[in-house]
């Protein structure tokens, strides 16, 4: 009976061109997260791989990341509609990566304020032409400039927004995962939405600064949170223990690359030799590890 019903639903949604709501978990009162899968963005998942979600206040809803394509954004919007009639007043983007921002255009109709790190607009603008050009072959979707919504408000350091008896503290971090990472802290439930500043199971991706990321982690590691939401991986209830794997991975890179550079080693050799002790600890290691070594090597060359 249940099966027939859900098939009917699919037919119903499909035939009316409506979007099925995205599956979300209520991880704390009023905080909903859709947990992504550890996959490479491709033409089958269309880039919908990241953890995204929303927080409901007394007055309105804050969306935190919108997904890997406009359809995922629309499905997230439907998921919100299933929970509340309150309007979406903020769309917060945690950083520039496609799996977190490509759903932005789905929320334009709600006329929210789009908020991001003060470097986010620059990052979107400088990557836009490349992202738009690659979307069809890489993700099997068509994107336009209208889909890449730049924030109306850039956060320099901190910004507190109120969604109705619920204050969210936004923090812009120095260069770490990218040069535009923003976190969202919900005081009411002591929940920290770290997004891609924390990877679990899925190999961390360095697209900013290795040293910067370690520094940000060490600062966050001194704090206590009841709950932490990573950009990729399951909900965290043991902080800071949960960041240990990522901390180890980044520090192995730092240590081994420094030695390699001191010994006069070259980039093309570093990528085949460094960090392989960490290989079986991560999903997608073969897909991103060499890129991580490359980015880090280029950074550490300028240390002295």
């Amino acid at each position: 009976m249940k099966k027939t019903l859900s098939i009917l639903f699919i037919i119903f949604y499909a035939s009316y061109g409506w979007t099925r709501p995205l599956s979300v978990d209520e991880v704390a009162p009023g905080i909903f997260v859709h947990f992504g899968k550890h996959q490479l963005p491709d033409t089958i998942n269309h880039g919908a791989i990241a953890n995204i979600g929303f927080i409901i206040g007394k007055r309105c809803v804050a969306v935190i990341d919108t997904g890997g394509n406009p359809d995922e954004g629309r499905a997230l919007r439907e998921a919100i509609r299933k929970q509340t009639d309150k309007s979406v007043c903020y769309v917060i983007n945690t950083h520039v990566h496609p799996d977190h921002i490509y759903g932005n255009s789905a929320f334009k109709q709600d006329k929210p304020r789009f908020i991001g790190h003060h470097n986010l607009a620059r990052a979107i603008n400088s990557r836009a032409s490349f992202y738009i050009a690659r979307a069809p072959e890489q993700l099997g979707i068509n994107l336009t400039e209208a889909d890449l919504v730049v924030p109306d408000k850039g956060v320099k350091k901190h910004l507190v927004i109120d969604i109705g008896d619920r204050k969210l503290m936004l923090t812009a971090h120095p260069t770490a995962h990218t040069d535009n990472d923003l976190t969202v802290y919900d005081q009411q439930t002591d929940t920290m939405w770290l997004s891609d500043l924390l990877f679990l199971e899925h190999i961390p991706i360095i697209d900013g600064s290795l040293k910067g990321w370690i520094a940000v982690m060490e600062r966050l590691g001194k704090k206590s949170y009841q709950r932490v939401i990573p950009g990729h991986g399951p909900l965290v209830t043991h902080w800071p223990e949960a960041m240990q794997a990522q901390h180890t991975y980044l520090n192995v890179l730092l240590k081994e690359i420094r030695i390699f550079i001191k010994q006069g080693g070259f980039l093309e050799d570093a990528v085949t030799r460094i960090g392989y002790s960490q290989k079986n600890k991560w999903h997608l290691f073969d897909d991103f590890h060499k890129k991580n070594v490359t980015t880090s090597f280029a950074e550490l060359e300028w240390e002295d």
Partner: protein
Amino acid sequence: MKKIIWLIPLLIGLPALSQAARDEYAWNNELKEEFFAGKKIIESNDVIDIEVPYRAEDPALVPLKIISKIPQTKDRYIKRILMVVDKNPYPFVGEFEFTPQSGKADLAMRVRVNTYSFVRAIAELNDGSLHMAKQFVKASGGCSAPIGADLDAAMKRLGKMKFKFGDDLQIGKPSQAQLLISHPNITGMQMDQVTRFVKKSHFMDKLTVTYNNKPVLTAKTDIAISADPNFRFYFIPEGKGELKAEFSDISCETPTSRKVCKSISSYSKSQTITP
């Protein structure tokens, strides 16, 4: 039976598809004419070869090596190597001039590769003959775009240079030097939704390395060179001497045209060497 009939066009279709991804249309119909109008180019790996990863893990930073197969002698030497990435928005990567004093016309650098493309190097010998080597590169890297990771850090140290040497500096023998240049090499490929950002390109356009005032490497470069340009090249130490690098940068109105550009500044760095 029906199945087999269906399979035939599929099987014929497959190689055609993979060919399409590796096409050389841009080179054969535009680029060759643009750079070498009316000239004969020999395609072989006898003079130079290219080493580059088949799968580029980071499209912003693809390590690329040109390996010369002939020594730089007074009678016969590689005078110039031109590099092109067929499918980049601005395919010209750079033009590098060598002399017999270079010792060896090997060159390593890091380039931006926008998509699946052939990367090619054409060497011109002092007798005027042209020799081309090419490699196919699959640029992947998922979320990363072919720009630098940390623009602010690169801007802060813009113009800084460093030389590095191995332990094998030998008098009278071709020896390798590495030159690290700090420059964001901004492509200028920005979207113009927000006008407050610079949309102009800003990149290193000329580089000269001399050893005891004699040119070792002279280059014209463009936006396909990665942020923080990095070159490895050869020279022949003659006892105590001075290696000197000078470069200049320019800014152009659009990323894909070099008609309206203005020069910004020039930078230099010298280092005394005692092999």
